[in-house]
């Protein structure tokens, strides 16, 4: 019964999102285009002449693209939750037999679906125009990405709970997410950071996401990243626990 509501709500929310002027373009087209452009720029240098760029191409770029997708969807989640709260949409939905977690889960599932679609497009487009030989498990990589998004969505809910108005939700969310990205080992390895920043890096969820995705992309077996997944699950548990206390429906 409630599953049916979840499916209906997810489907309608997906349609609504794609109807937004920047919905499909912002979340799907732009990451794919950036990926292609960057790939072309770096890809033109002969790989043997520049090992740094070829390693970036082989591992850095796909992981960076995946992290961008994840950050983008969490920020969009934060925005939607705060807009829905401010407009009384959450309240109206809550006045139905829908369970509160169903309402929120539908939003996360929409983000997961769209992220998976974006990743898929990226891979398809990349395969054609851009010669990365992919012998990575794409399924595994996708699962890694979805686990990560699922985990940091809980952080998104926390941000949405604490930011009072919809107008500030997205900027404040960006202020939290983008600096976090720079310390996550995405641009420079965590080991190269000063010790103080390394310590900060170790408590950031994105660090574990980057480590997980990089590992999977390089072909590491899953169990070597068990700790990353454990941390992501723990982050989910902690943020969800706090959110259930501080989340406001109106």
């Amino acid at each position: 019964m409630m599953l049916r509501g979840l499916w209906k709500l997810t489907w309608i929310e997906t349609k609504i999102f794609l109807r937004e002027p920047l919905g499909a373009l912002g979340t799907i087209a732009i990451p794919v285009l950036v990926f292609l452009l960057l790939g072309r720029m770096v890809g033109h240098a002969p790989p043997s002449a520049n090992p740094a760029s070829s390693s970036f191409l082989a591992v850095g770029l796909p992981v960076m693209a995946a992290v961008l997708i994840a950050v983008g969807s969490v920020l969009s989640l934060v925005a939607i939750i705060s807009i829905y709260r401010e407009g009384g949409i959450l309240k109206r939905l809550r006045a139905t037999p829908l369970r509160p977690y169903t309402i929120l889960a539908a939003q996360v599932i929409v983000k997961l679906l769209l992220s998976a679609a974006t990743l898929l497009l990226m891979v398809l487009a990349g395969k054609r125009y851009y010669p990365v030989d992919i012998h990575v498990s794409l399924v595994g990589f996708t699962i890694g990405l979805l686990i990560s998004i699922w985990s940091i969505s809980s952080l998104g809910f926390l941000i949405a709970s604490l930011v009072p108005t919809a107008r500030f939700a997205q900027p404040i969310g960006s202020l939290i997410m983008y600096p976090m990205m720079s310390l996550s080992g995405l641009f420079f390895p965590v080991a190269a950071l000063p010790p103080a920043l390394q310590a900060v890096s170790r408590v950031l969820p994105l660090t574990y996401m980057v480590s997980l995705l990089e590992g999977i992309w390089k072909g590491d077996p899953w169990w070597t990243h068990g700790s990353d997944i454990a941390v992501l699950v723990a982050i989910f548990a902690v943020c969800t626990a706090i959110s259930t206390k501080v989340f406001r429906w109106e």
Partner: protein
Amino acid sequence: MRPAIQVSGLSKSYGDTVAVNGVSFEVSDGEIFGLIGPNGAGKTTTMECIEGMRRPDKGTISVLGLDPFRNVYELQERIGVQLQQAQLQKRIKVWEAVDLWASLYRKKAVGERLLEQLGLSEKRNTWFMNLSGGQKQRLFIALALINDPELVFLDELTTGLDPQARHTIWDLVRGIRERGKTVFLTTHLMEEAERLCDRVAILEHGRIIDIGSPESLVKRHCPERTVVLVTTDATAAERFRTIVCVDTITCLDTEITLRGHGDDFVTEVIQCLSESGIRVTDFRTILPNLEDVFLKLTGRSIRD
């Protein structure tokens, strides 16, 4: 018969603001019950506590035999709710909203028929953001009725509606009662309360001042009657003074206003006119209505 709603000693504060302060009342099965009161009186808060959407600080509530806060999901299956301030997703289409809502309940009314009754059939493919205010309101009423509820809550049901839509919705609400269902509504239109409600509770500063049928409230609080007549007869005013139940007489040019009390007041004025052979060119009676009661009980100045 068990009342549809039983509220006793309900209190609710937001921080320092006491919104509802010891409210008790009952709504019988099958009646249309109205809650009226100035802005900020606590109507919405009372309603939301009964709907299970807010937890009361004090007091007990029973709705359809359920505790609204503890059995909220079971209750929500059986009630319909129209909130005073609500929005839907900007780009949800009318039919999608109806379809979604219908899928959430075990029991369902025919969505298409509701849209038709509420004059929204033509708008079924329109995005919510492109509906007019009144059309949004009608959509919310459709959503409140989608599960064919036993008890419907309508918070300011006709705010922003044109006269046609208002009459349609009044008919719809009466139709709900005819099918044995109960309606709990709030309104700022005294005409609406008078025409629609079997009983009305007047709420002020979180307390109920009085409850009763609109007629009985008028009788109790505004027993005075007024007759306005126009005559050139100079002796008229003198003659009216002999009528016992006349309290005041005001003459303005040829217009005379008589205020009095009692059920026989108008009859006695007419009798006096015919006995004295006074010719009048106009004769009007003004009977007090719920609006007069409301203003009398809750004052005339604006609330914050």
